[in-house]
């Protein structure tokens, strides 16, 4: 007899706006407090203290325009946030400061979240949608120099880039970018050469979100339709469809694979979080707590596996935090 799905371990309230992005920062050594960063539609970034379940700091850097992405850059003292005010801000949060040290003007008016990849100590690559409709720009941070611009072929009609993921097989190999586009295709780009290596049409509708497991060379993408598409990368760097999974309700906003590559979570428009096994995409759980569409899901980076958490942010302005399959 299967157990009923668990309840959230706790729920964070107080953003007073829909939550669009979440990022955990719990990997620090013991005296450090585990934190959760959340970006909301009212332009605020809240730093949640996961011990007290309260907001420690609220950062206001996007002119009250919705924040669509937050990520830490090497520790909780440096934060990157992207907002719909067409800016990407770099924050310095050390020692209680809350200042924006630098910003990049993206001129992008869409909803595409940028993607960060650490390539060397103190150096990151960031992929972001650029001003021109179909292009993706790669910048090096913190120098903000442009590495390349990835332009699809003329007449390719991919539409806007919807979601991006920078990855490299291991430190020192060539960085690659997986981009999901408005026409439902996923394209693999080689960043150093600035060329596209492979393209796969995964969905009939725009690709809303994707995630990739570089060890197994397998990725998953979700769209506004009822299908999850799992694809793989073969030795010739070609994308192939591996499997598809049909959902009960249409619409996926976010997909994320847990760092240990055992399970993945999807954020659904039907207010539910679904957990699948990554190996064979076996449905494991449906977490039904929220009362409006869920915008983002995120796994924590706790050092101790038993403490691992999953957080989901929703339009109903709440962040639910779950402890699920933490024992394995």
């Amino acid at each position, binding site marked *: 007899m299967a157990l009923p799905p668990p309840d959230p371990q706790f729920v964070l309230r107080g953003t007073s706006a829909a939550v669009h992005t979440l990022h955990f920062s719990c990997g620090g050594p013991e005296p450090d407090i585990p934190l959760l960063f959340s970006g909301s539609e009212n332009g605020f970034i809240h730093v949640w203290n996961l011990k007290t379940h309260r907001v420690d700091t609220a950062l206001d850097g996007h002119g009250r325009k919705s924040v669509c992405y937050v990520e830490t850059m090497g520790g909780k003292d440096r934060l990157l946030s992207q907002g719909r005010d067409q800016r990407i801000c770099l924050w310095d949060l050390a020692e209680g400061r809350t200042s924006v040290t630098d910003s990049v003007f993206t001129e992008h008016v869409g909803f595409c979240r940028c993607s960060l990849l650490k390539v060397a100590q103190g150096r990151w690559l960031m992929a972001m949608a650029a001003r021109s409709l179909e292009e993706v720009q790669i910048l090096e941070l913190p120098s903000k120099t442009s590495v390349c611009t990835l332009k699809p072929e003329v007449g*390719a009609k*991919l539409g806007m880039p919807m979601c991006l993921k920078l990855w490299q097989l291991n430190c020192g190999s060539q960085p690659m970018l997986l981009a999901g586009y408005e026409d439902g295709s996923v*394209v693999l780009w080689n960043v150093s050469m600035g060329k596209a290596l*492979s*393209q796969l*049409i995964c969905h*009939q509708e725009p690709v809303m979100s994707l995630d990739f497991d570089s060890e197994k060379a397998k990725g998953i993408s979700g769209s506004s339709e009822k299908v999850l*598409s799992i694809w793989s990368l073969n030795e010739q760097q070609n994308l*192939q469809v591996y499997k598809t999974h049909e959902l009960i309700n249409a619409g996926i906003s976010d997909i994320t694979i847990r760092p240990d590559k055992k399970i993945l979570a999807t954020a659904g428009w039907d207010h539910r979080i679904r957990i699948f096994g990554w190996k*064979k995409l076996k449905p494991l759980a449906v977490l039904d707590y929220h009362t409006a569409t869920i915008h983002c899901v995120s796994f924590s980076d706790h050092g101790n596996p038993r403490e691992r958490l999953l957080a989901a942010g929703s339009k109903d302005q709440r962040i639910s935090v779950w402890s699920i399959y933490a024992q394995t």
Partner: protein
Amino acid sequence: VCFIPGGLDCSISFVSHVLGKVCVQGRQKEILGVLVPRLTDLTKSDCIWQRICWRLVECVPDRWMEAVILGFVQRAPGADVLSRLLGNLVVKNKKAQFVVTQKMLLLQYGHTTEVLQNLLGYLSLESLRRTLLLRVLQELLETWSSISAVKHSPAEQQLYISKAILICLSHLKESEIESCRQELLTSMMEGVKCHLDSSLPQLRHLGMVVAESISLKINTEGPVLKFEYEEDDEIRELKSLLVQTPPFCVVPSLPDDDRSEKAGAALPLVPEGNEKPHTAAPVMPDEESDAELDSDDDLIPYDMSEDKELKIRAPVYIRDCIEVLAGSRSEDVDKWEATVKALESLVRKNPAATREVSVELAKILLHLEEKTCIEGFVELRQRAQVAVLTTDPIPVAKYLTSQFYSLNYSLRQRMDILDVLVLAAQELSCPKFHGKTKHSGAQKPCIQLLRGSDSSKDWRRIVDERIKSKTQRFDMGQSRVELASHPNKFNSVAGHFFFPLIQHFDRPLTTFDLLGEDHLVLGRLVHTLAILMYLAVNTVAVTAMGKALLEFVWALRFHTDSYVRQGLLSCISSLLLSVPTERILADMTEELLETQSWLGDVLEKDPDGDCRRLALQNLLLMENLKKKLEAIPS
């Protein structure tokens, strides 16, 4: 073989005379049937014979020239042959020029497309004649763009002129188009305006096709005019005329081509990339043989039986529906959608509750605009309106008819009111329409009833049905009894539907003038009245309605719009079918006699074919009436 010019002249002119006389007597077919093929062969390569042929036609006396030219143009197998046979006759002979450039194109319209092709091709083949071609095009365009021509000339003539214009356009060279680009543009603008103003869909389509073709020719780069319309055989034929096999290979583009964006599989950017079509067959994974045994098995799934499809629940009470639809909260669009979809069935299931709020609901529905993109929104709204109207006919009809004549409604809304009234009347008077009729998702479901291009067929069928129903009534026994009780529903309200609509038609408002610009709505109003009249058979008010309708028709009988006239004639048909014979004869004799003479006029002189057909039908119905009267022993 050489001929002596002197001797040649005499004999040729004699032959011309004979040819002319035979043709004018009506024997073109016989003589040209022999002459033309022979001449075609002879003139193929021999220019002496060509010249002989030219002399032949040139010597035909003027009074017989028309018949000869007509015969040649109709008989010649192609424009080049015609060119060989006639030479520059049109340039040299005034009568020939008149026949070819004016009479056959502007004054006659019975010739086939091949004849047109021959004629205009002939004009285009020689530079001397090309000036005539340009002149012809200008005159055709003048006719095409004149308002009075569009309004008063028959549809067949307009089709003919459109074909001629398209063929001319196909023959024009770039330089010629350059020189008359400005005039082409001006005529196109004027012409397309008059055509789009017309109430008949066929004329509108003609205007659209020709305007598109002209625009294509004068703007070879840059945006081209494109209209949206459904293609039928006539339009396809028209468009094919724009293509000529020698130099012009311009194919006019079809308007619905742009919807193929989804299909386009984008090519892989590197040749060896292979792409599989979306989500179809999964490539079979061979993971079973993997060394790492499913550590997934450690993960035990939770109970997922609660995971069901997400349904947005629609409100269950009418008043809740009103709140959702009238509320300005833009947030709950899902609920709004669900309400719109569920409204009709709710109204039908709760008649008592609906009656309490019927007018309010009608008001909300009349002003309801599409908030999100629902499929079939227009139909859903219309069905809800019909449901409300049939549940509480009198107050809602009062409201709707008063709104029809109020300020600040769009034409679309006024026509919606008429459609709803008709559908509700149908439902009230004839129960088998209730709920079972499958409106096939077309935006205007009752256009079929109102605007069938073979309306005569419809009416014949209806007349037959009516006669059949009258004779079978006593045979069918019990099932008929059930049917007989239903017309009562419309009986009590027929007047409420009908009279308010007919009352104010001659009072113009600032935004709505039935007798002026808004003749399209007038046409629809007249057709609506015809249907209401037809459905009012066996009601108490039918005689009063008949009288009022006769007066209305009489006032409008000379209206210039043929769609309105068709509607007026349908009104007369309905009247004759619905009002009992005794009442017609008792109360409306003089009016009927006047109507009969008017119908005779229409039958002879009306330019529109459908009007003439309907007039004939009405006269036949009147004859039937008379016969029936004579059959009844008094």
